[in-house]
């Protein structure tokens, strides 16, 4: 059996680190605000000195809201055929981000707002040549 080739849907947004999957963001050293994706500038108007530094974020959080993508989304979205509706969510991470995401789950209707979730790297779709194209998702912690 050959191992499936994988590729990130876009580079520079997430990484599989020694500690587990992380979002590649930044944090302002002055005011502590977290950003995803990376931001050259701190956008906080109350911050006196923009000083953003690259950091890894978003390992875990709480589901703020959830919805279902019932119809196949138009381009530039991509998905596997035949189309299966999937869950999308808004996650408040424990390190201060409110991030948009797909939710990795077998039962989108069973998700409850307020549940604990963990960042995973998961397949978004398969390319024509069989390459598994990956993105970040959150999965409920059971």
């Amino acid at each position, binding site marked *: 059996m050959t191992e499936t080739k994988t590729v990130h*849907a876009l580079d520079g947004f997430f990484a599989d680190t020694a500690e587990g999957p992380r979002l590649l963001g930044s944090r302002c050293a002055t005011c502590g605000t977290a950003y995803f994706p990376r931001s050259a500038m701190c956008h906080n108007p109350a911050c006196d000195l923009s000083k953003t530094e690259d950091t890894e974020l978003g390992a875990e959080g709480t589901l*703020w*809201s959830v919805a279902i993508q019932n119809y196949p989304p138009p381009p*530039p979205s*991509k998905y596997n055929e035949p189309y299966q509706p999937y869950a999308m969510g808004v996650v408040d*991470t424990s390190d201060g*981000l*409110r991030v948009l995401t797909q939710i990795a789950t077998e039962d989108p209707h069973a998700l409850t*707002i307020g549940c604990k979730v963990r960042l995973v790297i998961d397949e*978004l779709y398969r390319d024509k040549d069989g390459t598994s194209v990956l993105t970040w998702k959150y999965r409920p912690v059971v």
Partner: protein
Amino acid sequence: MRDVAAIGFGLHPWGKFNDKSVGELCRFAVEKALADAGVGWREVQAVAAASSRFSGGKGWGLNGNDIVEDMGSTGIPVYNLSAGCAAGANAFNIGWTLVASGAHDVVLVVGGEKMPKGFIQTSGNEEKTDPEFVRQRMIGMPGPAFWALLCRRRMAEFGTAEEQLAKIAVKAHKLSVHNPNARFRDEFTLEKVMSSAMVSYPLRLFEICPVSDGAAAVLLCSADFARKKTTAPVWVASSAVATARFDDGIPRGLACPAPKDGRAYHSEAAMAVEKALAAAHIGPRDVDFVELQDNTVYYELAFPEDWGLCQPGEAERLMEAGETMPTGKLPINPSGGFLSFGEATTAQGVFQICELGWQLRGQAGPRQVPDAKIGLAQTLGLGGNGTATVLKR
């Protein structure tokens, strides 16, 4: 600042017009507004127009220039304003400023749009620096899904039922029956809305506005000029524009800082409304009716609460009690709203203001808000643009 009057309102009906150019739609609306005001084209001293992303404007959003060339090249200044779906009301704000400041006495405000089919798509640029592209490619999350997420959160907080969402669409179409300018003028039963396709749970197809073509124009002028033309002008009590705040909890790209209180609200809209009410020296409860941007039924619940027109969690009950109908305590979208018109993105801010004008003049027929004295219109657009306009008689 001087008093500013609105003395002419003109609309091309909303719909899909494959055999008409956006220029024709605009000309129709402009001629209607000029005739309504009793003003000739050569009296117009400046044009403030919404820049369209989809049609006309020589591909540069120069839609005001198209109108001036079409109506007669008198050499007047043209201001083309771009603010996503808020562009029409943004142009109105500039038109109002031009008259209020004394720079011009007679200014025409126009928005016209022909929309491509389907839900609004991304710019087509596949660049990692475009957050719209990244969101759709990496998360598969188109626009309606974003509304669904906000709506589902409300359902969890306030117990909003799916049937209550559908009833808002039913109400919109009850009113559209009486609006000859609306695109969808049939009554929708609750069953029809509930059995429409689920687009993004919890939102169904008839709970989301489609895209349309349309054009609208408003003629603004000084008080002295208005007195020469009419004995009962409608007055611009205020016009305000705002952009989104850093801390409002709405992730506009991929993420935003998570607010400590867990809340999310459209600060660009709330701030524009707050500024407009303050400038008009009125409180939220003094507003007789509202035309708000109902891209989806959710906003008809959330916005009145965000702006203090009613208490948090109260909107569903008011709607079910009929209080958001023209004869109720808090009439919302007597025009039928975007749900009945569809979204002609850059034109709709001007269409809302036309509806305010007709309501305040008592010309709205069976959808009339009885004895309407103060009306509020609101839009919001991509980039965190928000507008609010208060008209009074």
